[in-house]
């Protein structure tokens, strides 16, 4: 097991109090696994990713432990973490296109960075050049300044620098969001290639874009309002999601071959709850068309099917009630108490149910 996270809690300090951005998450990433981490913006997925390498400024480690390759990762101790950064855990940040100091040549930056870590660039230089060529950057990029490169090129240079020391875990934060579709695909392929070539042992790919995860991820984990809602293999997640939130997320994706003049693309109505003082119980229940009395209790993140964890009372009932592998259809039909609880919130999943019928 490459990474295992136990009940991790990360807060943001604000004037109005602490915001629980990551509220007790537990999960693991296996060796050679690419795990996708998805959710709406503000759900805490980036905070979770960042907290594994750099707890900065107003972030605060409230509780929980992180283990990497069987050893504890001292995430709350900035100094102790320095030893692990880049070497054991590394990151391609969300701002990868502006992550390089504009007034230093790419090679100089790498040199200074490694020197600051007590290493020599000369030792890894041949490997550096090989990888630069692999990601499709010109040979002389080490002698170039970041402002001479396009945004996409800067991002690739950042990718290479971040993975130069072959980390066990790479956190790739929204690496595809600022790119056009063809580049998204190319960067996705590079990420899997990095894994296949052993540049990184395992990876967490953070994104709000489920389609890129369908392409590259082995497993997908979904977060909502600071909590985990569902985790399963990528194919299960795309084809047979159990959590109503995942279902809604998928239904809001455009589909190939569908003309959207004929059918409306639906978002999820409503907003996630404030994390300043989140209401007890399931955090999605305000927006969930299936919510019922039991949802005022916190649903545990439980393994309902082998390798498929979900935090939802409704899904648990469905699975336990023998709906079994047909749960997708079952949950799409509003039934019993769930339907009565919120008839006016029907449309989004109603639309999805309609899609299923087409």
């Amino acid at each position, binding site marked *: 097991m490459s990474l295992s996270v136990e009940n991790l809690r990360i807060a943001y300090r604000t004037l109005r109090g602490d915001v629980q951005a990551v509220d007790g998450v537990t999960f693991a990433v296996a060796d050679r696994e690419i795990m996708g981490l998805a959710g709406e913006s503000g759900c805490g997925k980036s905070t979770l990713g*960042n907290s594994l390498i750099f707890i900065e400024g107003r972030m605060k480690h409230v509780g929980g432990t992180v283990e990497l390759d069987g050893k504890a990762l001292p995430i709350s101790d900035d100094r102790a973490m320095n030893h692990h950064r880049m070497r054991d855990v590394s990151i391609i940040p969300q701002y990868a296109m502006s992550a390089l100091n504009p*007034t230093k040549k790419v090679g100089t930056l790498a040199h200074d960075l490694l020197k600051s870590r007590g290493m020599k660039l000369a030792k890894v230089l041949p490997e550096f050049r090989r990888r630069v060529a692999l990601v499709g950057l010109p040979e002389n990029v080490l002698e170039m300044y970041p402002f001479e490169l396009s945004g996409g090129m800067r991002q690739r240079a950042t990718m290479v620098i971040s993975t130069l020391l072959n980390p066990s875990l790479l956190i790739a934060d929204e690496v595809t969001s600022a790119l056009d579709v063809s580049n998204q695909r190319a960067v996705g392929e590079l990420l899997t290639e990095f894994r296949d070539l052993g540049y990184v042992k395992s990876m967490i790919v953070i994104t709000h874009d489920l389609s890129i995860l369908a392409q590259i991820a082995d497993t997908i984990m979904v977060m909502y309002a600071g909590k985990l809602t569902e985790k399963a293999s990528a194919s299960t997640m795309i084809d047979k999601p159990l959590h109503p939130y995942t279902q809604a997320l998928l239904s809001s994706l455009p589909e190939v071959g569908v003309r959207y003049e004929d059918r409306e693309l639906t978002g999820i109505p409503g907003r996630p709850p404030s994390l300043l003082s989140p209401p007890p119980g399931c955090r999605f229940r305000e927006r969930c068309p299936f919510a019922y009395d039991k949802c005022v209790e916190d649903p545990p993140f439980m393994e309902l099917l082998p390798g498929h964890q979900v935090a939802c009372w409704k899904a648990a009932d469905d699975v336990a009630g023998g709906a079994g592998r047909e749960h997708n259809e079952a949950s799409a039909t509003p039934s019993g108490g769930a339907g009565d609880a919120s008839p006016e919130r029907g449309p989004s999943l109603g639309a999805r149910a309609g899609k299923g019928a087409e």
Partner: protein
Amino acid sequence: MTRYFARKLGLYVLAFWAGVTIDWAIPRLMPGNPIAAYVDRFALNSQGPWTALYKLFDKAFGYNLPLWDQYWHYWDNLFHGNLGISLYAFPEKVTTMIAQAAPYTLALLVPAILLSYVLGNRIGAMAARRKVLDNTVLPLGYLFQAMPYAWLALAAAFYLAAVEHWFPVEGGYAAGLASGFTWAYISSLLYHWFLPFLTVFLVSFGGWSIGMRNLVIYELETDYARYLRALGARGRLVRRYAYRNAVLPQLSGLALQLGTVIGGNIVTEVVFNYPGLGHLIYTAATDQDYALLQGIFIFIIVGVLVANFVIDIVYIWVDPRTRLSMQGAAA
């Protein structure tokens, strides 16, 4: 880089042209007749000699020519290094008078600007990361920024010179001392130089340190700084990068500040009766010594442009963006 340079050079030429033209135009645009005012000073009580003298001077200064010719002559003289003759210190050449005063001004300005810039940047950068220093540098910096130059100079002259007698109240060197390479003369120069220098230095210093503090704080929050820290770089490297990048806007700020510093310098020279250009232009104005006034004006503009040129070269040297691309960051 060539384009960046050509553009800058074009701006210098334009600024110089504008400066000279303004200088030429002021006496001709202002209400009243400068020649008449000048002739009035001879206090002639009959009309005849007055008119004769007026005609004489009108011709001598070329005011009787068509405007276009006057303008042309002005440039012609300028390129021949001829700035005219002082009326008050007749027949001293304006250029000679400027040459005598300029060293004093440069001796004040150059060290004050350089030292306040370098020290201000250092202290400001330190304040950006040390709370204790920040709590003292910041209020002090704001206080110095809020002080009028003239008052700071007066207060320093009053307390340190008039009351405590640590420094002389006025002058460039002790009266009656022969100039030359003697210890007595040079030490007297330094002794008189220190207080005016200190006031010019202090006011600029506050501005630089506060500016640098804010810029470094800003740089430390940029993406590249976060990235370096996320990859475990030592604080020293992050700060070095932040400092280098923060210096760039400070440097273009230095070019913009020159006019203000020169203004402050004039005031300081007047307070201390320091025999530099500031004092000279001030007395030229009170004496209505127009040729001298205009000559100093041109000289100062040339000085500002030369200083800008130097700053531009340094900027090209420290900012690769100006060197390698077309975007002139500090245009």
